[in-house]
Every structure is written in structure tokens, then in C-alpha cells.
């Protein structure tokens, strides 16, 4: 299996990364414009408000686009943008599936997998 590099911890994303260790997917939500965003920031990229808060996501969505990285890497992997029910898309990997049967529009849910140094990060699997 492809061994995932680890995310980079910084003051803006420690809450997000710590939640992932507990199999929780967090999003940032803006109390001013009432929109979620990804990747998470302190200041809302939609409206510029600093009134943002962490919210739990069910981690349900569908594949917006994908590719199977077949060459130039040690082990092939499937990269995707998954569009969450919340209406925003995340760059991620697809797992627990046959890479040749992946389709745009397929329903997926979040799963957490260990990276090279044992941290957990979010991936998605077909439902």
C-alpha cells in the first residue's frame, strides 16, 4: 500500500489534526456568511470575517474528480477531490476500492488512515 506522508502541524491546523487522531473530520464554518470552507483558515476566505468556528462533518460526499497515479511513484494511488454534503471539496485519496472501477459521482465516506509516522489523516472510501 502507498505510505502517506504526514500533514505539517502548525498553529492554524492543530485542532484539525488532533481531531483526525480521534477519527473526526472538522471543517471551518463562518458565523458571518454562514458558509463552510476548506482547507481551514482563521479568517473566512469567502467573506473575510474572523468569526469562524470548527464544526464536525459527517464526512459524506461524492467524487468530484479523480486520477490514478500509476507511474513515477513507488506504489500507485488514487487521488480525488471529494465534494462533501456541506458543498465544499477536499483534495484527498480514495482507498478500499478497485482503482479501475472508480467513477465521478460515486458516493463516498471518510475513513482515517495512518501516515508514515503514525499520525492519522482523512481518506475516503466508496459506500
Amino acid at each position, binding site marked *: 500500500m502507498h505510505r502517506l506522508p504526514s500533514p505539517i502541524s502548525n498553529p492554524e491546523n492543530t485542532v484539525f489534526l488532533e481531531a483526525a487522531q480521534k477519527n473526526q473530520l472538522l471543517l471551518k464554518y463562518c458565523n458571518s456568511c454562514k458558509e463552510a470552507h*476548506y*482547507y481551514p483558515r482563521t479568517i473566512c476566505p469567502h467573506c473575510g470575517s474572523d468569526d469562524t468556528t470548527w464544526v464536525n462533518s459527517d464526512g459524506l460526499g461524492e467524487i468530484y*474528480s479523480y486520477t490514478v*497515479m*500509476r507511474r*513515477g511513484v513507488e506504489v500507485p494511488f488514487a487521488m480525488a477531490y471529494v465534494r462533501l454534503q456541506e458543498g465544499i471539496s477536499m*483534495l484527498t485519496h480514495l482507498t478500499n476500492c478497485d482503482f479501475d472501477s472508480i467513477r465521478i459521482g460515486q458516493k463516498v465516506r471518510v475513513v482515517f488512515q495512518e501516515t508514515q509516522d503514525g499520525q492519522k489523516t482523512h481518506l475516503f472510501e466508496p459506500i
Partner: protein
Amino acid sequence: MSFASNACIAGIYEHPLRVAPDHTVAQLHAEVARGALLDAGLTLDDVDGYFCAGDAPGMGPVSMADYLGLKKLKYLDSTDTGGSSYLTHVNHAARAIAAGQCKVALITLAGRPKSEGSSGTQVRSQWASAPDFAFEKPYSPAPLNTYAMCAMRHMHEFGTTSEQLAWIKVAASHHAQHNPNAALKDVLTVEDVLNSPMIADPLHRADCCVVTDSGGALVVVHPDIAKTLKKPVVTMMGAGETTKGQMGGKVDLTYSGLAWAAPLAFKEAKLTPEQIRYASIYDSFTITVLIQLEDLGFCKKGEGGKFVEGGQLISGKGKLAFNTDGGGLCNNHPANRGGMTKVIEAVRQLRGEAHPAVQVPNLEFALASGIGGALGTRHGAAVLILGRL
């Protein structure tokens, strides 16, 4: 006359090497600077504006100006939007010249990704400090996989096919056969492209540009200076530039920032896409070209596949001649940044200096476009519309 048409591109030079393990990067910058100044009929002493991107060795213009021996600088710019930087530099140089900030602007690019083992399948080291990368690092975003997702979505929404994408490479290869310096000179068929190894679905190896050590330079001057020089005068008629990213998660991979920037350039130039018969279209991958053709207005969104089919981008055969030097797909993609060579070939076409087999006759206007960074995550986009006075 519009604001930006008060500046001209008077000097161009493309480094002939495609592999340069025995050159330093700074040396390549110096060789292309010298080449472009000789082409213009100017000297280092004439240069009072200097432009390089963030990848230039050392502290950008500070290190490079000292190395090159530029002693009269009044205007500096090191805007870095990846491969589109050099179109942006031409735009900024033209504005600075029109505003009286400088009169002779030198723009240089050079790099050795071939000798340094760079590949489009690798995560780019310069992305490491980006705020997005803290989240995206586990997924190894690289040029190939992120552009591939644009192609996959375009196919899904509009029915674009791998055969249609292949026609873009085929057209580039038809042009590259006439370029003795091109990294790839063989004429390819659609089948050749489709039979090349799949790298990142749906992009094959032949859907990708070359990786080359090389460089290029431009000299942008005040029209009063251009009139005193020997080369035909190529003027800046209009320009547009922007960035586009993931939009806070509202990702849309079907269009580039050119959808916003191109209308500004056409408006400023007072031209329409129908009046453009030659275009240098940034060609990191075949899908990059297809999406830009739509965003530049050469066809409607979603119809790029039909537009390129059957060799419509081949000079002398199709409705729009593109990348007659062979482009990044076959000729040269110096430093993994193709914007410089896009401008150079557009100027060659307007001067009538392209290879006779690919020269568009009696060309009045040309367009050059660039996409820098990664179309599938975040990119710079820039377009220039040039004319022959």
C-alpha cells in the same frame, strides 16, 4: 492608443540547449540576457528595468542584477506565478514603461530541471511552505495528478476524449519537426499518443510537456527606442492576469483564471478571438491547452475537444496555428516554466522569423497565454495580445 500599447518587445532569445549539466543557472540567465540584448541591438548599459521570477538564483533581482552587471536599474519586479510569470513580467514592464518608470526592461528565465532530475510526477519543493500544503501533503499533489483531475472532470462534463487531447500533441509534433533545437522532433500520430504509457489517468506520457534545462529572455522597450532598432516592431496591445485556486473549497476544475483575464486583454486590445490567427498557448499538458482555448474564447466552454480535432492547431492546415516552435509539449519547457517561450514564439511569428514551414503569412496580431503552478489546485494565469506595427 491604449495604455499598454505604449511598449514594445524589441529583443527575444531562447537558449539552444535542452540539457545543460555544465552550466550554472546564473550562467544560463546571463547567456539568454546577452542573446536578447544582441537581438534587440541594445547593451547591458541600456537596461534600466529588470524582471526575474522567484526561482532565480539567490535573492532574485538583487543577486541576478549584480551577477549580470546591471548598474542603472530604476525598476525591479520578481513576481512569481510559476510558468506564467514571464507574461506577467511583460505586462508589468509595459505598464512601468508607459508610466515613465523605465525605458528598457530585461526579463530573464533559466533553470536546469532536466539535470537536477525533476519530474512532473513529483511534489514540487517550492510548494512546501504554502499554507495549503500543511493539509495536502499526505496526498502528494504533483503537476501530473492535479492536471489529470482537470482532464477527468472535463471528460465527465463535456464528453472530451483522449483522442481529442492527443490531437494537441500531434499538432505540436508537426511543428517541432522543423525546429532543430526541439527536445522531441518526431511527428506523432493520435495512436502514438494513446499508446504511450498511462501516467495519471487520463494523461499519457505523450500528453505531458518535456523537462528541459534551458532559458529565455525578453527586452521590452519604450516605442521611441523600438523605432530606432532594426527588428520589426512588436507592440503590446492588451494584457490580463489573475490567480485562481480552490475558492475556499468551491472547486471548479473546468476553467482557468484566463476565463477572467482574457476578456480584459481583448477589451484593452480592441480585438476579438476571431481576429487571432496565431496563438502561443501554455502547454504543460494537452488538457492545459484545451481548457485555455475555451477560456480565451476561441470556442465555447466544453467544445475544446471538437475545436482541436483533426489537426486544427497545425499551422497552414487548421483554423488556429499554435505553438509553432513545438511548444512545451515537444520543443522546450525551460525550468518547468513555459511562459517565456510562449512570448518568444509569438514575437517570432509577428516578425516573420518563425520557420518558413510554420510561419503564418501576413500576421498582424498574436496571442500568448500562460498557466503557472497547478491548474488543479491553484495557478497564475496571464495573457498578452501583441501586434505588429
